[in-house]
């Protein structure tokens, strides 16, 4: 198999990789904020439930969670899953997992905002939502950007876990070709794809960090 063929095969798989990556971000970034509010809730029943959810998400392997999301409905509740469910299970699994991590990152940012900011906002007459959206959130974004960048870079590589439920994206294809052609070249090519993707993510996040650098 020529090198250009390997490249083409992996590139098409890379499209799937990027789709999982993008969909997960779209869902998990906002979901993380909802999870944070649940964790910070005044209602004990909500905050305890959310803390438990976060501990499970962070305390068990993502691959295990994917297997449960995918096989769970059939083996547990005898639900017949159609072919399209595989992608749904993947996005659900990734989103709920990453939302837990983002929630904790957001919490670290929000709790580091000095209470004086809240007090000043209160004295100036801002409502609770105005205070959060105009005063607190913009400052939190700047503070948590490096941590969020870390998670996003990890996500690029975590997409390879979907091979465990036989979803064909770039990593699965690399494995297939490597096995079929008994060569390790596909792995190196896949590695290069991941590396370049991570470089792009890091570059984009750095640009955003620079734009937010107009104040300290």
């Amino acid at each position, binding site marked *: 198999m020529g090198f250009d063929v390997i490249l083409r095969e992996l590139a098409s798989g890379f499209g799937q990789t990027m789709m999982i990556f993008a969909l997960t971000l779209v869902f998990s970034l906002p979901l993380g904020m909802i999870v944070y509010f649940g964790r910070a809730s005044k209602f004990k029943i909500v905050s305890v439930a959310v803390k438990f959810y976060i501990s499970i998400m962070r305390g068990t392997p993502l691959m295990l969670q994917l297997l449960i999301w995918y096989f769970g409905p059939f083996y547990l509740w005898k639900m017949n899953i159609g072919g399209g469910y595989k992608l749904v299970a993947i996005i659900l699994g990734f989103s709920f997992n990453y939302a837990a991590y983002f929630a904790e990152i957001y919490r670290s940012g929000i709790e580091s905002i000095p209470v004086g900011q809240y007090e*000043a906002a209160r004295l100036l007459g801002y409502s609770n939502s105005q205070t959060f959206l105009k*005063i607190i959130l913009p400052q939190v974004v700047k503070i948590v950007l490096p941590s969020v960048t870390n998670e996003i870079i990890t996500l690029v590589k975590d997409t390879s876990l979907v091979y465990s439920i036989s979803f064909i994206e770039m990593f699965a294809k690399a494995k297939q070709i490597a096995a079929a052609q008994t060569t390790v070249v596909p792995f190196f090519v896949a590695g290069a794809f991941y590396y370049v993707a991570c470089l792009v993510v890091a570059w984009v996040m750095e640009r955003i960090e620079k734009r937010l650098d107009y*104040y300290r």
Partner: protein
Amino acid sequence: MNLLEMKHIKKAFDDTEVLYDISLSVKEGEIVAIIGPSGSGKSTLLRCATMLETIDGGEIFYLGKRAGWVGDGKAAFPKKEERKEIQSYFGLVFQSFNLFPHYSVMKNITDAPIHVQKREKEEVYETARRLLAKMGLSDKADAYPCQLSGGQCQRVAIARALALNPKILFFDEPTSALDPELTGEVLKVIKDLAAEHMTMVIVTHEMNFARNVADKIIFMDKGVIAVEGTPDDVFASDSPRMREFLGKLSREG
């Protein structure tokens, strides 16, 4: 009618009583300075007056409107509309300024009037420019707080509070976080406000300033008002605690 009336205020944090029985009133145009040792409850009193803390006993009135009281053993407040109206009567300048770091000086000053009081942008910008000129910071309109000195930040904080046209302005140790050089420029601003008869309650350690600017001085100690009166009366007081406090100050000179 007094602008601010605080009657028999009690406040405790967990089991520690901080305010025992504080009553004070402020007339319109009056300038009150609150002095006293650390831990005497000065800041707590201000925070109760500005509703940052709830009270455990007593009542607070602004222009005759009941702003805070205790009902059924819990702190009580008026309904939303009246509460918002009362909150618009006062402003607070913090010891640590608490400017919004991601807003420029101009935005710090104009954002609340525009988005909270819903005033016309042009009028607010005009007011902000006038206030900055008064503070001597006209050239800093587009600067960010991280680029300003402490004294400049505090003056922006004062402008930010004034932009909302409060009836009474509270100051919680406005110069305590500033070195002596920067303290002067902030005190000058407050003196100018005093000359314009802005009603003010200032918690401060600057004794000379308090003596020169205030109409009434309140000396607090361990959660009660120990001495109260005109600057001359208070500084000449026979109260042993007062003498001890002033004595410590002059020794440090």
